[in-house]
């Protein structure tokens, strides 16, 4: 992949007290690529994502996106810039329907003001229709038509994860951060999810940063992989290179 660099992480260091979660990490995400981030538990993968999406404030370093340092802007503006994410433990409104969850995430694109929303016709109506249409595209893509009106709290785990991916997608992000989208899924659900990620990447050209423990999936669908271990980036390369890399084998994949 030789796409232009869209997101650049420079010398990122994050600590909690004496505990170093990330130490001097450098990483680039290029246009249209799927970048896998792997590493043992506690390696700092989720911390990395939390830094990008503004949950954590690291002590040192920069995260550059569209000529802005994401660490210097408020967290809620990051999704407006075009970065969306999913969470390791699903974070949806459990009392709302799938559709409402998706609609809620669409707020960043809504143009009309409070006054026109009060009179629900004309421009605000037209906009609502436009947004619903965009959401239905995602509903179709993720094949969740049959649970459109189901309350999220009543859905099985695999489907909740799908709705959560949907919520990230309706924001039409340029960069998608996925935190273990396949954890706790059976083989069939994993295959579906992998297919969706590939579709999103190919159809919309979305760059994806994927944290995942299932090595089969990571090796299959990513273009490049970065390996973290105790907060340090120990390797980076194509799936083939990573499979052969002795440092990685030692730290993570296990000795043959």
């Amino acid at each position, binding site marked *: 992949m030789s796409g232009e660099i869209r997101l650049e992480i420079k010398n990122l260091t994050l600590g909690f007290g004496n505990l170093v979660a990330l130490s001097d990490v450098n990483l680039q995400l290029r246009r249209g690529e799927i970048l896998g981030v792997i590493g043992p538990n506690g390696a700092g993968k989720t911390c990395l994502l939390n830094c990008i999406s503004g949950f954590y404030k690291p002590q040192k370093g920069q995260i550059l996106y569209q000529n802005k340092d994401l660490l210097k802007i408020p967290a809620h503006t990051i999704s407006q810039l075009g970065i969306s994410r999913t969470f390791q433990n699903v974070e949806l409104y459990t009392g709302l329907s799938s559709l409402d969850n998706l609609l809620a995430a669409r707020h960043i694109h809504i143009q009309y003001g409070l006054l026109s929303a009060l009179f629900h016709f004309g421009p605000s109506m037209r906009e609502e229709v436009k947004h*619903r249409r965009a959401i239905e595209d995602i509903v179709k893509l993720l094949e969740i038509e049959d649970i459109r009106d189901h309350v999220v709290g009543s859905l099985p785990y695999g489907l909740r994860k799908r709705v959560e991916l949907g919520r990230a997608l309706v924001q039409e992000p340029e960069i998608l951060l996925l935190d273990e989208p396949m954890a706790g899924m059976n*083989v069939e659900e994993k295959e579906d999810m992998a297919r969706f990620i590939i579709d999103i990447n190919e159809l919309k050209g979305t760059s994806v940063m994927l944290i995942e423990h299932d090595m089969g999936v990571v090796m299959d669908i990513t273009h490049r992989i970065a390996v973290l271990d105790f907060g340090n980036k120990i390797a980076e390369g194509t799936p083939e290179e990573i499979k052969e890399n002795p440092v990685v084998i030692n730290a993570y994949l296990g000795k043959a």
Partner: protein
Amino acid sequence: MESRKQDLDTIPKLLHNRALEYGRHQIAMRKKDYGIWNEYTWQDVYEHVKNIAYGLLSLGFEKGDKITIIGDNDPEWFWAEWAAQSLGGAAVGVYIDCIPSEVKYYIEHSDSTFVFARDQEQVDKILEIHGQLPKLKKVIYWDPRGLWFYDTSKAVAMKVLEDLGQKHAEDHPDLFEKFLSQGKEDDIAVFCYTSGTTGLPKGAMLSHRNLLYAVGVLEQYNRFLPMENYLSYISPAWLTEQILGLCGGVLIPLVLHFPEKPETVQVDIRDIAPHIIFYGARLWESLASTIQVKITDSTPLKIFFHNLALRISHKKLEAKEKGEKIGLLLEILHRLADFIVFRPLRDRIGFTKNKVGYTAGAAISPDMMRLFHAIGINIKNLYGTTEASLISLHRDDDIRYETIGVPFEGCEVKISEEGEILVKSGGVFVGYYKNPEETAKVLKDGYYHTRDAGLFDRGHLVYLDRVDEMIELSDGKKFSPQYTEIRLRFSPYVRDVMVFGGEGKPFVSALLNIDYDNVGKWAERRKMTYTTYIDLSQKKEVRDLLKGIVEKVNSVLPEYARIKAFVSLHKEFDADEAELTRTRKLKRKPIEERYKEILTGIYEKKESIKVESQVAYRDGRVGMVRTEIIVNYLN
């Protein structure tokens, strides 16, 4: 029917006439997409059909060519089929879950030159076998998701085909109308492949005359009003949908509704509240068990009222069956029960406006028919075969649950000495494609030999079983395993069952499949823990549950036909393992062969049997399962 003129003797001609008659003023179809119902007027439908037909012509379709269609019920399926029929061609419908080798057989055997496929999954199946199909000119798909980068020399989108058609139409105006006027009622309209309980599927050819006849006879027993709502749900690969949806939709005409996806039908049906519903017997069965399970899951108060209402309703039905006068009190109570319990219940399942529900395909248990009538659903047995089309049906005021109704006027039915049902009518098919020997075997002296065993009882036809499935027991008495099976399947806890007896089998025995969902819920309510299907199926409590169900059915059977031993099987019968047909009928020989060891064990009166069986997992992998299953004996 009044509006049918003499010269409108094919379905496409009727469609043309509808477009002239209703144009853009009447809705012909509704398809749920993007969560909303999209409407197509008669003019829209006609234009799509015309464009597709021109498109096919531009790609080399010739008069009499066949097309194969594989997909769910979508407007596009209907358009493609009507387009082919407009050009004097015929359509072959294929079930969406067929594997590539089956699809290949249908395309190859029917000499199809074009295939219409729903989506990427179906297109992939055909591209996999594309090289082995020299006659195939093009694959056309109507859901382009994921197919943008496919080789267009092999597969194109329906949109592209229609654009091609529009261009072709500019160069050849009136060509379509010329084709249309050349159509004759004896032209073959569809090939319906018989489900193949025995041997390779045979392609039964049905003409426009056959299909129009079938809709005509339905109207003898039910008055349809134009523009009533119809839910197109059962696959058009099955003749019944060809009759009601594809032919009746234009002839009556109906407003055809297409669910968003098969999975969403429960929601979609509530939006539509169709007047006419056609479900296969198995679908009614699963609807009944869904209702039963949902009710058992609800609050004690609701259960109490439901049971009370059901008792009142059954009492009224009983009185009606006996021909007694229904007392005023009972009538009032029934109205009340209907208002408080059954109306909301019918609303929940989308039956608020329903006038009639047909069931066909396999026998349905009388108890279940009674249950549906009790909750106010007018369900009727419709009897027919692929080759003889529709044969008999219940009249509105003359429904007897144990029969398959009264033969239609103009449909001659007689019972042969062997006990076989023979039929002569305008619905009897033209013949099997490329198979005159088989055709001659079943068509003798103008009668179609159904191979169904039946008898007449006070004017009603009673279906017993397939002639070949009637089993002579060791004491010479004949019994029908299917008769017992449907009664067992009425229990929500029994998903499938096959009953054995006859030669080399001193008594009647059965293999049962528990219904994993329902038995699972039952177990959860009793705070029982279980891991897998295998584990659950062998639990003592579950086996006792099954024993009770078997005993109950036994009590209505004659002594010689009662089940003496049964096994709760460690796996479900599976169409992918050739144990069931795609319409979920049992494939008896393969099942008997496969579970030979278990059967031997039962007849050797063993306590338990060790089994090792190959299972296909949902993701396609194949594995081995070793377990021990217990034989349950009844006194």
